[in-house]
């Protein structure tokens, strides 16, 4: 897919793609105080993919996410989830399809203990208390957070809180999980844990992930597809490789390119890297620089050590 600067909305209007689980079609929303939420927003999520929504604070990321599970309905345009149009009567069960992990996880944990909290959504799905308890505990175990089940949310660290909030949504087995700024206040160690969890949600559970973030380095490491959002609309879309080397779109959106991209550009200018390859992770950049003696299409081999470091969370 080539980077597309989304123009007038009509370009996107059309039938819902076959593998699209969420299809937002030219939707607009304005808050009662007059501030813009989203404007002629066109956006879609396919089964099993990780989509990153990148934009600065206030660009409309959170508003879009609240449209995905029916907390907000668009003033005009439409949101189609799993073939059902939101606001057309059928959408009362939207929360079963799309789970949202909000930015402030402390406000998302409202029950006395973590286990109670994870059980909340399951009970609403109709599970008996026993089934709900078992499934909640299992979800926490899967996330490596089984030991915090009996704790009060007050006594959790920021990273544990985030895990508990993710567990509360993951336990309900939605088709899509949307995470709003999941790492904004975490230190690198906890960021690495959340990153690993996001990967496993997609790979083990086959759940699509929507990731709203202003950390482009994170998006570069995780996302299959990146949407740059600005003033409530998507202004560029494509793979991280395509989007993050699109200087103009990033500048328009008030975002800084990932460090790797900045470095790569400097190096190209000095003739030390080959233009037109567009690395987005440090591994790829290192492979680029180490140059043409290695095969650039297999960057993993070159810097396997670094990659392993990333996975275990000692690297960033």
């Amino acid at each position, binding site marked *: 897919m080539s980077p597309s600067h989304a123009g007038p909305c009509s370009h996107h209007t059309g039938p819902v793609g076959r593998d699209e689980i969420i299809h937002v079609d030219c939707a607009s929303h304005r808050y009662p105080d007059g501030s813009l939420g989203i404007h002629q927003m066109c956006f879609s999520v396919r089964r099993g993919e990780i989509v990153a929504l990148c934009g600065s604070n206030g660009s409309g990321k959170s508003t879009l996410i*609240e449209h995905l*599970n029916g*907390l907000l309905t668009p003033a005009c345009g439409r949101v189609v989830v799993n073939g059902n149009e939101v606001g057309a009567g059928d959408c009362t069960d939207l*929360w*079963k399809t799309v*789970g*949202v992990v*909000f930015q*402030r996880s*402390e*406000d*998302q*944990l*409202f*029950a*006395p*203990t973590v*286990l*109670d909290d994870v*059980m*909340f*959504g399951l*009970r*609403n*799905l109709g599970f008996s*208390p026993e089934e*709900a*308890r078992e499934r909640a505990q299992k979800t926490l175990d899967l996330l490596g957070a089984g030991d915090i089940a*009996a704790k*009060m*949310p*007050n*006594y959790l660290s920021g990273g544990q809180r985030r895990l508990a909030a993710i567990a*509360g*949504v993951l336990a*309900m087995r939605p088709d899509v999980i949307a995470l709003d700024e999941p790492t904004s206040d975490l230190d690198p160690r906890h960021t690495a844990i959340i990153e690993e969890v996001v990967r496993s949600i997609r790979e083990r559970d086959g759940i699509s992930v929507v990731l709203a973030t202003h950390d482009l380095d994170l998006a570069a490491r995780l996302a299959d597809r990146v949407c740059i959002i600005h003033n409530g609309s998507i202004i560029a879309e494509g793979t991280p490789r395509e989007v993050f080397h699109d200087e103009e779109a990033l500048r328009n959106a008030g975002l800084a390119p990932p460090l790797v991209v900045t470095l790569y550009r400097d190096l190209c200018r000095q003739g030390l890297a080959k233009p037109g390859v567009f690395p987005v992770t440090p591994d790829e950049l290192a492979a680029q620089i180490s140059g043409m003696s290695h095969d650039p299409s297999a960057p993993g081999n070159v810097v396997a050590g670094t990659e392993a470091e990333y996975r275990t969370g000692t690297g960033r």
Partner: protein
Amino acid sequence: MPGTALSSHVPDPDLISYLAERNTSWFSRASPWTKAGVLVWLVVAVTVIPSLLVTGLLLSVVIALYASCGLPVRRLAGWCVMPVVFVVSLVILMIWSVPGAVLFSLPFPGGPVSLTTGGLSLLFLLVGKALVTVIYSLTFIMTTPMAELSAFVSRALPSPADQIFLLAYRFLFVTLATLAAMLTAIRARGGLVSGVVSQTRLMAEVFGLLFIRSFERSERVMKAMQSRGYRHDLIAATPVTWPGPGGIAVLAIACCALGAAVASGAAGGAGI
């Protein structure tokens, strides 16, 4: 976690829950129903028993219980100041001219009023009675893990009061921490400007801000609840144990003893 104590005379909920989470004393294993039963018994007992001696006895038993649970005794003294002040501030007006040996008299427009031994023992009696339930209540909440306590209280209250209790209890700590952070920020910029009006005004600003923050937070919590299909009530799934045979026996004996004491007291006057 930084403490959020706002005053040494008000028990700090953060510290209380910290101690409750870690308390492993024999009393922490008792059923909350038993503990609550004892609480009710104590409230009734201090209400019906007019004897200073019995009240003193109950007070020593309760203090011994508190200490035997390994709870901080020195802090208890600070926490008891406010309840004592409450009692004294009301009763101080009513202990004059009670029958008994006169200790001293004060001239008063409508005739002199005098403090007697009777009046003094009345003061001690009411302070003692108050402290019995205060100290027991603190023992109760500091030996019951918060998860168990909230599960217990939520079962005892009707909906939606139980829902409001659970949420309020969960976020009380957050609210206190926010308030403490605001007061810290004020201290960091030189504390309170002098002058009653500006001080009152500043505190009102802080309290107002606290309420606004609370509203904003309630909106976020509401969204989170809705997005997970709020329909079933918020529940506290932590199991609450029923009273064991020991607990039932203690309660039964205590009730019989109280009944007998009241009966004999009614027959034989006010006791000692």
